[in-house]
């Protein structure tokens, strides 16, 4: 990412320069933290995070605060090492004050017993958050994290091509199938979108919409329902789309996918809100060709899935929980944060007043049709209840591993889902968790 102007001036200041040269001379190799030092008397809060642009947020926070100084260490993204490092740090009793969790990873981190209960600290903020995000940090009714952003899924599509060939925007999945067939008829090489089989979080987002949560915390027991009616319906639908060769199979974001988008062979994308930026960057020449809409629904009842979203937790062993809370409240609710974020991404904050700030700061110009933030807002409103289980991250790799043979005809999505359910239940029971199969109330 490019340097923000704020950071550049900071880097050029005399103090910064001296500090940088000292660091180079002495310990440039050993430490890995931000180079600035805490003002005298300030409480230092350490944070580990892989959020893009976190360095800028931290720099902005430190520039305005005297009592709390935040030290950032950028760690590898989630499953590329971030979760493992945080989990092991908790086990070794040397966790940072603030940990990076995603809604989907929160329950798994909770299994270490390493997070602080924030129920009381956060109680006053409930009404200011998007309900989906608020639920995301409260898997068992206690608050374990501070929501940062949320990534509802939307349908991006080539409005120019849809209009040109008289294909109406699909509002239900049945219409989606019709539209997919129409696209293929216009151009046998083209598909309406890709259905990436190796992305568990994508399929989870698709299933989320169907209204059958995979996990529910019922008292002291997890009800696990990965092969529930809604999920099987989703699986059956996409299985038929794959069997009839109506969708492509390329992985989102790969060179093949970009080439397909470039060449007009992919007319749409079922993606999260962060794809707003991905599209603009991958195919800048397509400005004014794409539009976005909420996801097609099952029967007209509004519902929408989510693919990702960030929150932050505080270590149970933190020596500065109040200072950490001060920083996290700032990060989550201060209007400067989405303003900074808008310079390099398209933030979609979980905090509603901040979302309005992000909407204001959005420059636009790439998409046709309904304004980006209108669509995203509407999508976020439609998100049904969902709880992530303590094995969600592992389940994503199980999904991607079990879906692998689908394309070659080795198995079908519904079959694979039933196996995944068994696998997940066995895995959770092996850990000693109390598990009940299916959705019993």
């Amino acid at each position, binding site marked *: 990412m490019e340097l923000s102007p704020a950071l550049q001036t900071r880097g050029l200041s005399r103090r910064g320069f001296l500090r940088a040269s000292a660091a180079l001379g002495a310990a440039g190799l050993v430490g890995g933290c931000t180079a600035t030092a805490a003002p005298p008397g300030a409480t230092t809060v350490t944070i580990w995070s892989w959020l893009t642009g976190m360095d800028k947020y931290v720099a902005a926070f430190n520039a305005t605060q005297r009592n709390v100084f935040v030290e950032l260490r950028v760690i590898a993204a989630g499953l590329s090492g971030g979760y*493992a490092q945080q989990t092991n740090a908790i086990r070794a009793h040397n966790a940072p004050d603030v940990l990076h969790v995603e809604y989907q990873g929160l329950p798994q981190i909770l299994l*270490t017993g*390493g997070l602080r209960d924030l129920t009381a600290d956060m109680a006053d903020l409930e009404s200011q958050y998007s309900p989906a995000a608020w639920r995301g940090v409260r898997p068992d009714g206690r608050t374990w994290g501070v929501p940062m952003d949320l990534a509802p899924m939307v349908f991006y599509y080539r409005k120019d091509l849809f209009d040109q060939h008289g294909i109406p925007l699909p509002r239900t999945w049945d219409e989606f199938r019709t539209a997919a067939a129409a696209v293929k008829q216009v151009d046998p090489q083209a598909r309406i979108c890709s259905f990436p089989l190796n992305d568990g979080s994508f399929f989870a987002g698709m299933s989320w919409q169907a209204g059958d949560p995979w996990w529910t915390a019922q008292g002291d027991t997890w009800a696990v329902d990965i092969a529930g009616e809604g999920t099987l319906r989703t699986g059956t639908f996409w299985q038929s789309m794959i069997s009839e060769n109506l969708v492509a199979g390329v*992985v989102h974001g790969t060179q093949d996918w970009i080439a397909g988008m470039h060449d007009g062979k992919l007319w749409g994308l079922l993606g999260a809100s962060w794809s707003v930026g991905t599209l603009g960057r991958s195919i800048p020449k397509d400005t004014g060709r794409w539009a976005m809409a909420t996801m097609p629904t099952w029967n007209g009842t509004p519902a929408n899935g989510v693919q990702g979203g960030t929150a932050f937790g505080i270590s149970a062993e933190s020596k500065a929980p109040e200072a950490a809370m001060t920083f996290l409240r700032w990060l989550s609710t201060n209007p400067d944060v989405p303003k900074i974020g808008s310079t390099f991404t398209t933030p979609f904050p979980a905090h509603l007043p901040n979302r309005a700030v992000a909407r204001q700061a959005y420059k636009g110009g790439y998409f046709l049709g309904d304004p980006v933030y209108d669509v995203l807002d509407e999508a976020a409103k439609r998100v049904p209840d969902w709880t992530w289980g303590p094995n969600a991250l592992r389940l994503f*790799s199980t999904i991607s591993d079990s879906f692998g043979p689908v394309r*070659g005809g080795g198995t079908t999505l519904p079959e694979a889902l039933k196996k995944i359910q068994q696998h997940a239940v066995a895995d959770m029971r092996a*850990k000693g968790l109390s598990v009940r199969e299916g959705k019993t109330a």
Partner: protein
Amino acid sequence: MSVLAPERAPVQETPGSPEVIGRARKKDFAGLVLAVPFLVLLVSTVLVPVLYALYLSLFTERLQGLGFSGPEHVFVWLGNYVSVLADNAFHAGLGNVALFALVHIPSMLIGSLVLALLLDSAVVRLRQMWSLAVFVPYAVPVVIGGLIWAYLYSPTIGPIKNLLGVDPLSDAAVLPSIANIATWQWVGYNMIIFYTALQAVPKEIVEAARADGAGGFRTAWSIKIPMIRPTVFVAVVFTVIGSLQLFTEPMVLRGFTGTVTSTWTPSMYVYEAAFVAGDNGRAAAASVLLAVICALLSAVVMRFSTRRSR
């Protein structure tokens, strides 16, 4: 692995010369001083971790209820080993590396042996240039080699799909595709090793065979190859160990295709167990099992090699 295979297999111990042995204790102590840095490294970065892995493999974390009250350490005897050995994913991983080895080892060894023999034949001009050209991929870090091939394999932007008519990243083709990356990387290296060994074959023996009327193929097959057999066997041992540890190439390809699972090889299984599932006991048990398999296989190859070269 980045080791070179020497001519002589490591079998017998050479005792120090008598003069040295006859010396005072103080002098022996000097030898120890020279050996101590490595000894410390060996203990701290090999011995202790191996023992720690054995220890870890006997424990697991037990949770209860929703699990949010945190884990409890439990001693489970060989429970982790049982669950790894019963895990289909682990079997599949072993199957994959076995197949990989079946494709990679013969193609790589035959390729490098043929090239080494060609270089050793008198007809080749610009020997240096050829050997360098084939050797260069060895200098390419495995991650980067993997990335290069991954792009070349990508169906729409890489040329290979059009060339072969097969999608190199599809279910059926991904294993040979991965083997190809490894072969590309190692063929030149082993060629150099074999070539160096071939040059040590006494010229008189080769000439004598030729005088008896043996042709080039015959000389190569019945004189040269037997003479460098120990070198070839050491190369086989290291390639077998390397194959079992296969990790980087499939890990890189995972970003490009869904056909490589997260537990595609035993090493990836260990990585997944430790760093995705957070199950250190199972990860340790799997890694110990992997080490045992490595040791058994190398013992088998070594035994085979010493018997054959007698």
